[in-house]
């Protein structure tokens, strides 16, 4: 679909959101081509929200087969989907959310994709992949001016990490002008303010022990939100074990997590009290309402990144599993 001329049908369907972000944003959305890598608990929440928002196309890249465990927490799947290729199995229900979006299923392994596969997209979203793939994608994205956001849910904890390159955005601000005329109060006008955020490359953000990345990039570690280090610990667990922590091996996995934490706090020269070990207990499984929260936050960042409307999160979002505060943390800039 072209960026021009939103039809009356679209205007009616998207009315309530156009009233929030404006028609120009809607036109940019409907020109956007989005790649989603992995459509599991968190992925299906993200897919739902961006399909509803009215993008041009969504490609779902997922090489897994549907398990019973996956089926019960993924609203795009039914019992009949079990054993089938996930990317294909989600198509009917995903498409029914918004018939105007072109949806493509791709069942290949993302690691085996050629670099040029990724060039065609406006933005790439990843969930549940290892850090080396995220960093590899980031390099490809940077060359091709494709935006990237990566997110995960570990139990009650969730986060996202974005590289929106040199991102320009606009936001509306209401200004009150003092009124010269009598007692009728002041006059308000809405002005558009332009801003820019220069995102750091992700190899300056996701730094683990035993990697070749530059240690110079580690700055201000003491003042960091402790949950950033919980995020690194969980990601490193996945990098080392090829899976997330599992409740069936809870005791062993917590021991592994503690060892990883130790090496991370050593690298960053911080105290182990930066976050409580008890948070590991909260990090098992993909909790559906937490997926809903992260899916909402990540989809909103995608919408903002594509439409250049409203300030984006720079560059990490961390959901506190205890207080439910959700905060921005700027790392690597």
């Amino acid at each position, binding site marked *: 679909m072209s960026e021009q001329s*939103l039809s009356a049908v679209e205007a009616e369907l998207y*009315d309530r959101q*156009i009233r929030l972000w404006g028609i120009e944003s809607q036109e940019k959305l409907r020109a956007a081509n989005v790649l989603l890598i992995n459509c599991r608990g968190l992925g299906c*929440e993200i897919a739902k929200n961006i399909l509803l928002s009215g993008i041009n196309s969504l490609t779902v890249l997922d090489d897994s087969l549907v398990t019973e465990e996956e089926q019960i927490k993924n609203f795009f799947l039914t019992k009949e989907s079990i054993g089938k290729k996930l990317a294909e199995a989600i198509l009917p229900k995903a498409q029914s959310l918004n018939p105007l979006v072109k949806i493509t299923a791709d069942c290949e392994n993302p690691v085996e994709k050629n670099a040029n596969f990724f060039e065609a997209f406006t933005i790439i979203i990843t969930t549940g992949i290892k850090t080396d793939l995220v960093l590899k994608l980031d390099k490809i994205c940077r060359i091709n001016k494709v935006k990237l956001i990566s997110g995960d849910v570990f139990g009650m904890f969730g986060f996202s990490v974005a590289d929106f390159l040199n991102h320009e955005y606009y936001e509306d601000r*209401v200004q009150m002008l003092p009124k010269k005329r009598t007692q009728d109060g002041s006059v308000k006008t809405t002005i558009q303010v332009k801003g820019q955020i220069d995102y750091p490359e992700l190899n300056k953000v996701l730094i683990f022990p035993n990697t070749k990345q530059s240690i110079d990039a580690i700055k201000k570690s003491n003042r960091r939100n402790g949950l950033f280090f919980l995020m690194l610990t969980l990601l490193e667990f996945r990098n080392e074990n090829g899976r997330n922590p599992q409740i069936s091996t809870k005791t062993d996995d917590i021991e592994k997590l503690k060892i990883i934490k130790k090496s991370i706090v050593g690298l960053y020269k911080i105290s182990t009290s930066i976050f409580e070990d008890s948070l590991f207990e909260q990090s*098992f499984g993909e*909790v559906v309402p937490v997926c809903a929260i992260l899916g909402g936050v990540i989809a909103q960042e995608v919408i903002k990144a594509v439409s250049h409307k409203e300030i984006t999160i720079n560059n990490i979002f961390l959901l506190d599993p205890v207080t439910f505060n959700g905060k921005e943390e700027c790392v690597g800039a």
Partner: protein
Amino acid sequence: MQLDRTPCVLGEEARSLVKEAKILVVGAGGIGCEVLKNLALSGFQDIEIIDLDTIDVSNLNRQFLFRKEHVGKPKAVVARETILGYNPDIKVKAYHDSITSQEYGVNFFKQFSLVLNALDNRAARNHVNRMCLAADIPLIESGTAGYSGQVELIKKGVTQCYECQPKPTQKTYPGCTIRNTPSEPVHCIVWAKHLFNQLFGEEDPDQDVSPDSEDPEAKTEDGHSMTDTGNVKRISTRQWAQEIDYNPTQLFNKFFFEDIEYLLKMENLWKSRKPPVPIKWEEATTDGEKTEVKDDDNIKNTDMKVWSINKCAQVFAKTVDVLKKELSGRNFLVWDKDDQPGMDFVTACANIRSHIFSIQMQSKFSTKSIAGSIIPAIATANAIVAGLVVLHAFRALQEQYERCSAVYLRRKSKFSKFVLAADNELQKANPVCYVCSPKPFVNVFVNTNTMTVKEFENEILKKQLNMIAPDVVLDGKFVVVISSEEGETQANDNKTLVEMSVVEGTVLKCDDFLQNYELQIAVNHYEAKEKDDPLFKVAVNPEDLKAKEDIKNGGANGKKEENHDEDSDDEPTIVENPPEDPQEGSSSKRRKLNPPEDSDDDLIVLDEIIE
């Protein structure tokens, strides 16, 4: 064997509480759909849904349990079918009904472990608040508006209730501003809606559109108003319009030329204002290019562009003609933002008036937002808030109430790191709350000489105090003033309060059986003095009436703001008003973070906004 859907991080005890819980979801709109999905996928097995609404196309961008083929069907019914598709093994019951109906009494509420509100209006929220207090069932209240939202637990004896803090009232505009001295687009839009009602709608003397010669500002030094010299027609606008058979040229010249000429004679009004410039039909229709009024599919040209004066005049004439035909054979038309001729008429008239008063003209799209009080709604905010609702539900089921402090979703700002901001502790109940305190008490200020018993019941007890079917007796005298039994006190309806011995100092005992709510009302005789004084007032402490003004101009719902920005090391705070915040004009230094409490969806009719 069935796989366990309950989150493994919850622990055995909590997981069985989830499986045993019976949950009521009130509202299957934007937040409701998301909440229901989360419940069905999190192992809840017994869910009831109640919603009065049917599905509309403009719901489909976020109410994802519904699809195009469902438009027109009841939300509760379709929501039930869809979540049973996610998990066919659970029990889901749907009610296509209003939660304020008499059928859903305290005993109905008592059967639930937890009530989750996903409503779009304050009256229903107030009602469910009272029902949950009466049944002593924990309630999780939620709402979104644009990018913002909030989630809050309400539990009798533990937290504040939904009505503990007075809510800011809708912005009102003085009659003289609307009729004589508009200065913002909204003033002209309100005027245009009044004009619609004067010509085609239900007649309402409070919606006069002609110049107001009683405007105190217009009075000359010797105190004379212009009433005696004016040429204001004594017959009603409607009558006159019918006499001239809705001739568009004559109507146009009356409202946009003659009335404006008359306004210009009130010279005092224009001493410090730019005077309006009257415009005649002939002038408006020759001004600029001759534009065709036609429907086309390009929204940018029809709805997003500001129409020329010429086009406004053409649309005015065309819609007057259409509406006149619609009116024939009926008593009156009801204005609706989704009804095209009515919406076009209001857009045209508001813009012509704006042009006359040198106010910025608006597109049809923006006019519709203001005229229909549309609160924008997006899928992502609803998803985030609904996720928090169910996380709170896990804790509330375990009676971990102290871990359920309110959480606010905010539009991301350059000046804060917070997207989700949680209160540090629960908000405590207001000890003199007229709903949840042990002996609820409130003062009302009414004109006891003129207000009838029926008006008292409708305007004060039902609209202001949100009762459904009140019984009222004179304290200590056993005189029944109002009975909830049909017809029992009909004879009192048209009596004034004085005639029923309800005077200054009278105490009334009110009882709403459905809400299990008893309230003592102290009656204060009060007469509106200034033209724009309210007709009546309601307050626990009379002093609160003064404070109310401050709340209106300040914090969103009068709550003390947790200061979350303390730890941020970046920029200093600035005065900034986000566009979606209805509390614009706020004098507070720090940006207010609580979202407006009327939520997810649609509309408060604009009529409430006026006086």
